[in-house]
């Protein structure tokens, strides 16, 4: 395992080192998905690509939004907008734990000085109809990653099984950089002419979104948008697979899945507004799951999902 001589000096340095580490392990370096998602798992490169027989190895940063976690930028490590680093390898290689530990060393964590542990945390995404077994990885009591062997996605068994790694980038970087408050963490190199902290980049946005998410977002509009996304998803998938214009077989799993992502985010916003009761919550989650399921059904009918004419 490559031991880095120097500790990273900034948030972006941590990201860059993860990128080069996983690139060196042979992962395709993808870019974030261009929609509001609650977690990196929602990226089609994970959700959809974990289905079917085709081997896959990808890594990417994914900006993620959790409206209920907004703290107006005041909490040392809670944010409504944050970054996840996501790795998905299918089939999961036998030495995935060692590969993962290598990535911690790559960002300057000395495994002989810290207490790294794999603590049971079975992952389940009720909205994606997905689950897997694995752990949250603790470094000195802090959860730095989620490590999951996918067993089912969108109601489909995963065979082969994908190994998924999700790093909470801010938390991990804060720890590596020794920052006590996320907003104080250097975003770029502190020795550059224009040093920027995480707060310089995001504090104001956190404040604005916290207010918006908790108190202002128009719930009537959101409820309506939820219904629209739900209807659109079904409508897209309702089309015949043969495209009359090109004469090709085009399933449109991904456009439909975009609507599923949209519905999921709107649900999160409604949840943050506190207008969904525990009992209703289940119903909404069930509705998003139904969309995810339909999209997964559609994806396995595509070439990337393993469909063969």
């Amino acid at each position: 395992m490559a031991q880095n001589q120097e500790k990273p000096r900034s948030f972006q340095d941590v990201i860059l080192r993860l990128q080069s580490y996983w690139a060196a392990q042979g992962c395709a370096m993808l870019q974030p998905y261009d929609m509001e998602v609650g977690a990196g798992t929602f990226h089609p490169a994970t959700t959809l690509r974990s289905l079917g027989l085709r081997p896959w190895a990808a890594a990417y940063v994914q900006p993620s939004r959790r409206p209920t976690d907004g703290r107006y930028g005041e909490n040392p490590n809670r944010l409504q907008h944050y970054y996840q680093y996501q790795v998905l390898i299918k089939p999961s290689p036998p030495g995935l734990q060692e590969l993962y530990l290598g990535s911690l060393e790559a960002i300057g964590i000395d495994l002989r000085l810290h207490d790294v542990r794999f603590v049971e945390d079975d992952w389940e995404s009720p909205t994606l109809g997905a689950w897997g077994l694995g752990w949250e990885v603790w470094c000195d009591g802090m959860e730095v990653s989620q490590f999951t062997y996918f067993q089912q996605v969108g109601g489909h068994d995963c065979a082969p099984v994908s190994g998924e790694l999700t790093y909470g980038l801010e938390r991990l970087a804060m720890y590596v950089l020794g920052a006590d408050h996320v907003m104080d963490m250097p975003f770029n190199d502190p020795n550059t002419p224009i040093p920027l902290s995480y707060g310089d980049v995001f504090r104001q946005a956190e404040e604005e979104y916290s207010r918006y998410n908790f108190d202002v977002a128009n719930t009537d509009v959101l409820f309506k948008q939820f219904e629209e996304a739900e209807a659109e998803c079904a409508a897209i998938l309702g089309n015949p697979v043969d495209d009359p214009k090109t004469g090709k077989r085009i399933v449109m799993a991904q456009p439909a899945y975009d609507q599923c992502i949209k519905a999921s985010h709107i649900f999160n916003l409604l949840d943050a507004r506190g207008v969904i009761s525990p009992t209703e919550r289940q119903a909404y989650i069930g509705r998003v799951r139904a969309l995810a399921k339909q999209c997964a059904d559609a994806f396995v009918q595509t070439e990337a999902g393993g469909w063969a004419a």
Partner: protein
Amino acid sequence: MPDLLIELFSEEIPARMQARAADDLRRLMTDGLVEAGLTYAGAAAFSTPRRLTLAVEGLLDECPAVTEERRGPRTDAPEKAIEGFQRSAGVAREDLEIRDDKKGQVYIARITRPGRPAADIVAEVLEQVVRNFPWPKSMRWGAGSLRWVRPLHSVLCILTNSAGEAHVVPLEIDGLRAGDTTEGHRFMGTGRFAVTGYEDYAARLRRDKVMLDPAERARHILQEAENLAFAAGMELVADDGLLAEVAGLVEWPVALMGEIGQEFMELPAEVLQTSMREHQKFFSVRNPKTGRIERFITVANIETADHGATILAGNGKVLAARLSDARFFWLNDLRVARAGMGPWLEQLGSVTFERQLGSQAARIARIRALARDLGPLVGADADQADEAARVAKADLSSEMVYEFPELQGVMGSYYAREAGLPDAVAVACAEHYAPLGPSDAVPVAPVSVAVALADKLDTLTGFWAIDQRPTGSKDPFALRRAALGVIRIVLENGLQLKLDRHVDAQLLRHKIALNARKASEGEIDTLEEILREVAERGVFGAAFRAVIDRIGRGDGAPDTGEGSLLRSIGDLVPDLSTDLLAFLHDRLKVYLRDEGLRHDVIDACLELDGGDDLALIVARARALQEVLTTEDGENLVQGFKRANNILTQAEERDGVEYSYGADVKFAEGPEEKALFAALDAAEGAIAKAVEAEDFTAAMAAMAALRAPIDAFFEAVQVNTDNAVVRRNRLNLLSRIRMICLQAADLSKLEG
């Protein structure tokens, strides 16, 4: 005699599954070996986060050869039958024995199964065990199809002979070939090494920083933690569940103690403990001088060059972040609480409890009304019960409870105090959820009791009103638990409560709410009036009729005819109420069964006057069960059943009901006259005793009928030719039934 050592080495096994898995491995392996004829002297299993280990001592070298005899056809049987027998037994004709049998001479085949070496059997059994291991949850990985709790990396399986030589058991499971190597600690170990037997294995592991025995790890953690706390003049807050869990998270435990920041000392102890235990798996350390939780102990899995300084600093930082989150919630919540919690209560108006049953606020309004009714009956001030119900669920809107749902109620209690509410109200906020499980304590403070009962009865009646009763194993709203809660609160507090009227009233409140949209104003007014009337009369039917009669005469009165809303509610509520009471009775039976009360004895006490008074049912049932253990009681039941059978048959045959008019003047012999006298005496005695709720006396009076009833049946033929005498006797039997029924319905008893 060889020893067997097995280690199944995998990625981290969840802590909560380890003990059970080690035990399963031992049980399944030894059972399988014994079944295959391989006995052993002793076996022990161990677990760490990464391995399950089984050591078996004194195994047989091989399972002994087994010879069995199989009986075949007679020697004069058709040739085909004899050939068939030879084939199935695999024995040549000349090797068959001929033996004399009752039926003549028969062929006997002696079949010998040779012994098998231990290694073959171990391999076979282990493969079966691995493939069918009863993990609570298992998974696949990579491109394989083998299932294990997490990816299985290596199998160590060796037999060690008395000379200390180890032989690997030849075995391969889905590409995993058994060997004689393992590895120690993930970070402190020295790589893979081979072992020759259990002693060597355990010693090598220890050298490579693995404590194999979970009990040893737990002892070690406890001792280190207590020492650390003691050295600082403090005490460890005991937490056995956490100890077992933490022992399953480490192979080499190292306890480290840290301080909780001064700025968090204002947080309630429950918040500190919950946050530390749930999120960090930290033990709490209390300062006996201040009574506060001031330090934490974390258990690391590694020894470091800086003696854990980095690890402790990291853990402290994580804790500070967690607690600063908690503090943020707490301070925000305090502002709302001190201002009277208004916004929280308001917010509950837009939180749906259940789609049909409306918002949490609507639910609270109903609970308040019922708590106000119940308050005085359980010794609480009605206003206080009402106030407690009003704020008991306010904390559901608080930020702390959003973060830690398990602190609901506990936080409510703190916030109610901050709001300046009386102590009884604050206590009720925490206690009204109780009891949550069969072993959870029930509330005893009157205000808590009133709100706890009202809460549970509102839930039950609500789901009954919308026809969402639990079915089979489906009980998504935990209605069985709510019913058990009602039962335990009533019984353990010795409350004499007629539930009927409260159930009726609450059902009616639900019906009013459920029909609020479609009903006219007049109809709602009428229903409200019935609700008030129920409170006065106590019986739904009477209240309903009284109000309907009253409005029936007025002009512009709402429709009360067949098919009208009012009529349908009037019909439905009593049915729902009866059904809910039956559900409570069922739960009561389950509950009392654990207390040793027979279910048929309880059945015999349910459908009598006071069947909605749970304490009365239990008192009656206990007295009945007690009397049934006496000879008189036992025999009385036989006499009663005989009387009942004769009567029922006669009533069926004659098509009439013999229920009245037994007259002593038609009595013939002394036994018959004596029974008249005994019934007269018992009737008064039982009635008086029941009135006084002295069920022991009532049962005794009933049991006293045993001798006269037995004597009567001994001497008298009920179905005589004399029609007058026969009718009189049947009416007499009916009196037995009716008089006993004052005390208990003996016909429900089994046997």
